Structures are given as C-alpha cells and as structure tokens.
C-alpha cells in the first residue's frame, strides 16, 4: 500500500531546536538528552506554534512600485520567478494539549498529547502562467499544470524515551498514536492545455484523483449546477472520532565526540494515518463522448458548420452546446472504505560546535518530504546562553526559492518555568514586503532540573 503524504509542516527549522535549555528540543531531536529532569506542559500555553511557508508569492516578484505604491502586477517577472513544478504555500499549526516528562537515571520518558493541523497547496509554474499570461504563451509546448492540495488535522498522542548510554552516546525514540480529524489528499490533480499556434485549437487533458475524509459526515456531489458539498452534522457519531487511526515514530541518536563537537541525526514522523470516516474518492478525466475526444483529451477546434449555424440562429442552442461540451468532463465522487496517507518524514543531520559553555554554533541539514517533493534545507544557527536563565538563538535557513529566512528565538529559564518565543523569519517584522515564511512559536513550560554542575546533565545540555 502506498503511503501518501498528509502532514506538511513549515520547513524552516523550529528555533526551539537550537535553544539549549528548552525542554521541547527533545521533540525535534529525539536523540538529545532532555535538558531537565521533569517538565509539565499545560493546554495551549505551553507550546503554541503557527507558521506559513511561502516561497512562491514574493512581494518583490509580484508588484511593481512607483513612489512606494504598488501600481502593477508584474506578470512575466512573477511567472519567471516560479519553479517549474512545485510552488508551495504551506500553513501549519500545532498546540500542546497536555504533556509531561521525567528522568529515571539515564532514561528520560515523556508523554504528549498535541493537536496538529496543516494545509499545503502546490502548483506548477504553468498554472500561474496560464492565468496571467494567457494560453497563447503556451503554443510551442503545452501548459503543464500540476497541483497538490493536502490538508490534515489530527491529534497526536505520543510516548518518547531518551537513553544516555554513556557520556558520548545517547539515543531515543518516540511512538505516536495518531487520530485523524479531517483530510484532503490529492494523488493526482493535473491538466495539460495545448494551444495550436495556427488555429488556436485547444486540447485539454486532465486527471483528478483525490481523497477526503472527515469525522463529521458530509456528502460530495460533483455534478455541475447542484450543491457540491453538504455537511451532515446530524449524522455525526462519537465513534467517528476514533475511526481514522494512525501510527508514527521518531528516532534519534547523538554522539558527543568531546566537549566541543557533537553530531546528531534523527528521523521524524515515520508513519501513516488510515482514513475511514466518510472517506471519499474524487476522480475524473476527459470522457470519450463524441467528436471532440481526441488523444485522450478534449479538443476544441471551433464550432463546425452545423453547430455554427445553430449557435448563431438558435438561442437555446447555446445552452445545449455548453451542456454537450460539459459532458466530456467527468468528475465522480464515490465513498470508499478507507485510504492511507503517510506522514511527512524529515531526515535531520546536525553538527554542533561548542565554543564554550555559553556559545554554540550549529549546522543542520535536513530533507523534508512536502507532498511528493523532497525539500532540502540548510540551517546555520548560533545559540548563546549568557547565563543559565537566558537562551538566545539566531538561525539562518537556506532553501530553494527562499533565501531570507533569518530567525531568532529567546527563552527565559526561571526557577521552574521556561518561557520562550521564537520567530523563524524576522525580516517580515522589519519589511512586510519580504513576507515569505511568517512563523511564531510561544510557550510556557514548567520544568525542574538539577544544578548544571551535575556532569551528566551538563553533558546532555551541551
């Protein structure tokens, strides 16, 4: 069974990952020993994260300005700035509902219950090109339109364990139980539009293959002219909440060479969700329904002599023609028993250089699957702990089509409370026209730890 992607996350690095005293770093680095002995997370306030990943719609590429005012949409420049196949717009949100963790000698155990939601839309360059430049820009080759739409909301109940084997090596894993709430997942949403350079005849091919599921029953009707979507709230049953079940795993390992050099690697979100609640399959392609069906597509070469005569002289024929043309385009919605989507797996390799106990430099290479695409990124981070109770982190992340991700994170480690806030891209705060990947994370997490002078804890923190 193929596992499909449902979980999209903003692809810049979470700043807490680099904050040395923040307990949540165990969530993105399962091999790292927790920097506390006990933590307790309260609903919402302990970890609230929202972000948008937008390497596509850049103000500078979209608008032309005069006297500081936007005057025009720069169609060609914007289209030229896009990547050929995947231009993403991703949003994600997560919050801790409840969580706690504690140390047992060399073992740290943690339990978390989170709500996660994410949405991702991707389109190929030619979709925007068709809209902004017109079909005549695609006479030499067809416009190749591919789209992905993936939306997921689910709850995650997880149990994690980190174990420090010795002062060099520690490793950990997290088992996740996933309960899906809603999902939209496209396997195929594509179209090819070819325009003949001489006659302007248009050949359209398309394929729709997507699934959807929701714990609240609903009905999909793709027929044109009828109500397309209807939420059947009255048919909701409590049991629906537990129908969409999934499993996930995180694994991590960290090796500390000496006081200065540390190498860690982790795999996050291996797993799947099986969607059963009101699962629909929406599929469609051009049907062989007459003379306009050619080469597996719908070819419109102009009205023929009979159609032309009727079209000009018969008022009602216009509707008939439209109806007959629509018959070529099929879209069916069928209830299915289940479908499965995979989680967005992330591979991370991180190298840390600890200048001393106050300054650390990190380089993180990660590859994250977004949709059917592997998105690589490189993050260079500097974290400083000028005192025990202040965490400061600055990170720069480099990704394809996104080069201005300068993040900052600040944490205060009070007696039993760590308060933190971070932003993975502070440039929009200075210049809104460079709004690309707005993101914030905030939390107040209660935690206790031994004195840092304890060598074991000290080692883990470093």
């Amino acid at each position, binding site marked *: 069974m193929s596992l499909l992607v449902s979980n999209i996350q903003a692809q810049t690095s979470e700043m807490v990952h680099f904050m040395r005293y923040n307990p949540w770093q165990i969530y993105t680095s399962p091999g790292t020993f927790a920097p506390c002995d006990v933590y307790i997370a309260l609903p919402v306030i302990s970890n609230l994260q929202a972000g948008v990943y937008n390497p596509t719609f850049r*103000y500078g590429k979209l*608008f*032309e*300005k*005069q*006297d*500081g*005012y*936007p*005057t*025009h*949409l*720069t*169609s*060609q420049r914007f289209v030229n700035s896009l990547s050929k196949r995947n231009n993403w717009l991703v949003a994600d949100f997560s919050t801790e509902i409840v969580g706690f963790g504690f140390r047992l000698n060399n073992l740290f155990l943690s339990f978390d219950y989170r709500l996660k939601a994410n949405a991702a839309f991707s389109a190929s360059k030619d979709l925007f090109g068709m*809209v*902004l*430049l*017109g*079909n*005549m*820009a695609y*006479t030499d080759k067809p416009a190749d339109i591919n789209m992905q739409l993936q939306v997921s909301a689910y709850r995650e109940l997880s149990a994690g364990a980190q174990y420090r084997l010795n002062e060099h090596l520690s490793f950990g894993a997290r088992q996740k139980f996933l309960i899906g709430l809603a999902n939209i997942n496209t396997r195929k949403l594509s179209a090819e539009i070819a*325009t*003949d350079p*001489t*006659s*302007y*005849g*248009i050949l359209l091919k398309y394929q729709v293959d997507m699934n959807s599921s929701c714990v609240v029953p609903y009905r999909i009707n793709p027929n044109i002219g009828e109500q397309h979507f209807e939420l059947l709230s009255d048919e909701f049953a409590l049991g629906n909440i537990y129908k969409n079940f999934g499993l996930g795993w995180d694994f991590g390992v960290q090796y500390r060479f000496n006081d200065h050099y540390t190498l860690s690697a982790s795999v996050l979100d291996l797993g799947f969700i099986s969607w059963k609640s009101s699962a629909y399959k929406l599929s469609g392609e051009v049907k062989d329904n007459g003379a306009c069906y050619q080469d597996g597509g719908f070819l*419109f*070469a*102009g*009205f*023929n*002599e009979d159609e*032309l005569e009727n*079209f*000009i*002289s*018969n*008022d009602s024929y*216009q509707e008939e023609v439209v109806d007959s043309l629509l018959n070529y385009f099929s879209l069916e919605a069928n209830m299915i028993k289940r479908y499965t989507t995979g989680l967005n797996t992330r591979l991370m390799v991180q190298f840390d250089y600890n200048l001393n106990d106050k300054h650390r430099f990190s380089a993180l290479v990660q590859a994250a699957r977004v949709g059917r695409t592997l998105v690589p990124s490189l993050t260079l981070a500097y974290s400083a702990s000028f005192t025990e109770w202040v965490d400061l982190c600055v990170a720069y992340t480099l990704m394809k089509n996104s080069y201005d991700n300068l993040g900052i994170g600040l944490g205060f480690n009070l007696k039993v409370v760590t308060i933190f806030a971070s932003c993975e891209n502070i440039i929009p705060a*200075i*210049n*809104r*026209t460079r709004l690309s990947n707005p993101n914030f994370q905030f939390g107040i997490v209660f935690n206790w730890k031994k004195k840092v002078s304890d060598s074991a804890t000290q080692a883990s923190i470093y």
Partner: protein
Amino acid sequence: MTIIAVFVASCEKNAFDFSRFNGTDSPSEWGVPLADATYSIESIVSRLGNNSVLVVGDDNILTMVYNAEFDEIVKASSFFDFDDIHEEGDEVIIPGRNKGYRDNTELSYTVTLEMSNPYFRLISGVMESGDLHMVITHGFDIGGTLTISSSEIFMADETPFAYTVDLAQNQNDIHLNLAGYIVRPHDDNEVDITVDFSTSAQVNLTEEKVLHYNYTGSSLALREADLVQISRIAVPYEKDMNVHIQNGSFGGDVIVYDPIINISVKNSFDKEGHCHLSSTTFSGGGNPDAPLLPDPVDIQIPNSPYAFQASEMSTISSIHFYTDYTTLHVDGEVTVEPTAETIHIDRNSSISVRIATKIPLKIDMNDISFRDTIQMNTIELPSVDRIKDLTLQILFENDLPIDMEAQIYFCDANYAIVDSAFVNPHILQGAYANAPVFCEPIYIHKKDFDEISRLLNCDNLLLSVKLYTHGKVDVDVRRYLRTKVSAKWSLYL
C-alpha cells in the same frame, strides 16, 4: 540597526496601499478557435433540404434536374369504354279485328351497346364491367316471360349470351351484370342485345296492351381486347416548370456546358409509337430564351411494357444561363400510327413519356453574386474596456475551382453597415489544379475599443460573395471550402 529598520520601514510604508494599483503591467494573451466549418457542395445541397431539383450525379457532379413526366399520355382505358345508354319506349298490341283471347302474345325490341372509338375497331374483348338495368311495365292482366339474348356476347365457354326471366303483372326491375362476358361485334364497334317478351297464357285482347320499357347501361368497359387501329393517334403534351434559382440574394449569369435531355419511354401498347419533342427552353426574367435543343427531335417508342427505355438527346453544347430565369418550357407530341395487324392490349396498356432536363455544374461563372444576412445572437463577452486589442484570424482552405471575392459587413438592427471585416473585399483563389488552395491568414485587427464594441454588439452580419471561374470547370460535389475562424485578444487583468 534601529536606524536601518526605521529606514527600511519608511520605504515600505505604502507597500500595501493598493489605491494606485492598476492591474497587470502587461496583458495576458488569449486565443480560442471559434469555427472550423467545412462546406462541401454536397453538404450545402443537403442543407437545402428536400429539393427535387438538385441531384448528385454518378460522376459526383451536382446537377439541376427538371422532370416533365407525362405518364400514360396514351392509355388503353380511354378506348375501352362503351357509351352509356338510356332509352325508354313502348311496344303496343292493337286488338284489331281479332278481339278476344289470343295465345302466344309476343313483343320484341333491341338494345345496342356502342363503343364510340375512332381509333380502333374492336375484334374481341372481355368486359371489365357493365351494368344493364331494365324497367319493364306492361298492361297485361297476366305475367309473362322476358328473354334477353345476343349473338355478339358470349359467356366464357363461348355459349351465346341468353337470359330469361318471368315477369310479374306490373312493374319489373331487371339487373344484368356483363362483367366477364366476351363481346365480338360483327363489323363495327356495336353490340346488339335482343329483348323478347311473351305472355304466359291467353290474353284477352279487347283493348290495346302496352309494354313500357326503360333501360340504362352504365360502366360498360372492356378489360382486355383484340383491336385493329384504324386511325392515327396524336396526343400533344407541354409543361412549364419553375426554375427556382433566383431568390433575391443570388444573382448573375453563368455559361452552362453540356446540358442533357433524357427522354424515357414505356410502352405496353403492343405496337410502336413516336415521341416528338418540339422544344425545351429556359425563359423569363426579361432575359433571352435559352433553347436546349438545336432542332426538334423525334424518337421511336418501342414496345417496352415493363421498364422505361431512355434516350439521350443531342443538345446545344453551352447556353447562357441566367439565374433569374423563371421557367423551363417543354412541349411535343406522342403519336401512334394505324396498322392492319390486330393488337391485344388490356385496359392498363399505355404509353408514358418522361423528359428530364439536366443542367450539370460544368460551368463558367462570371460575376455571380451572393448576399446573405445572418442575425447574431447576443453572446456575453468580457468587458470591452479590459481588452487591449482583438484580432480575428480567418483561414481558408479552398478546394472549389472557383475564385471568390468575399466581404463581411457588420450591421446594426436596421441593417445599416457599421463596419466591414476587410478593408477591401477579400479575394480567395480557386483550386484549379485539383488540390486545395491554402490562403494566407486574414487578420481583422481592432485596437480601438469603440471598434471592438461595435463588432461585438452588431446585430447582423451581411455576407457578400462574388464568384468567378477562369473558363469551364466541373464542380464535384465533394469539393469544399473550409474555413477556420479564431479570435485572439489581449486582456489586462
């Protein structure tokens, strides 16, 4: 750092003020095909619906065919009828000196059936029908016997016809049906029937006795007969046919080559006849008449009882054909000459003549004009002021061996011309080398919004076409004119 931030922020303070925003910097360019229509001669003909004049010939040449049909112009049934008869009279017995009872009192009269036919002498025939109705009234006190007989009428077994009936005292109705009887007149076309009356007992003749008779003969007709033709039969024929080409939107003249006249005859008359075709002529519209025959023609009509025998006449090789001709006139005569032999025919025997005048599209056109108005429906189109320019592209693929000079006019509701598609009428070269001619694309480019508006909102299209050929061409119905119309426009979003 703060200074830099303030500077940068001040630079972009209006960045999200879209009050001066004016859409895209360059227009999107869209193109769609509007029409891909192929008009072959054949399809045009089929579009004309049930038109008996236009026919596709075996050689795939469209042909105008005008049929003048004179079925059963000579028919046996017109010679096979006896005259209806009606006669009334009295037969009287005067007592005279021998008053008193008298035996075997007899009275007699003759009924004559006559076939008034100057063309044939009847030798023998079988009656198809024949009702003979007699009403006899007599003044005798007693009944009697009536005997009807003829030596010229026979039953199927050749027994001479005889019919006897007992009469009552007063009025008597007698009906005779002669169907199936054989008649053999002696010398002429008359058949005599004798009616004899006799009393059944002695009659007391003390006063005059009157026998009143009233007889009627109707539907007296032969089914088949042996005949000898004794005089010439000559039946004239003529017909004016509506030419139906000129319709107000089509005009001009054309030289038509190789017109064809076919005369088809069917003859079940058991002897030959002749068909004389005097003239076949187009006329009307104030134009000179165009006779198709150089001279009258005469053809033999052989015995051909079951199928038409066709003959093709020699015609004038070309005629000047005016599209506003109104009539095709055909006239002539069918004759059958007398001969001594006896022929055997039935009442369905006949001679039929059909004259087909065919005008194939082997033509030389010069300045044929066609104008047609097409009423446009309202088509919802995008707001004109967003359109930068509009270009209509027209492609022609001409397989017709005809030059065309075309213009399309855009008209308002009152058919006033507001614009034209081409600056000058567009010349479309004909395909004279039996291969279609692909014309360079024609572009109708409108940059001015008012022009575009006028185009999009026109109520009527007026199509004006002039047609020419360079000499004689044969127009195969499979040849066609294909046109592709597409529109391209630039649109500011």
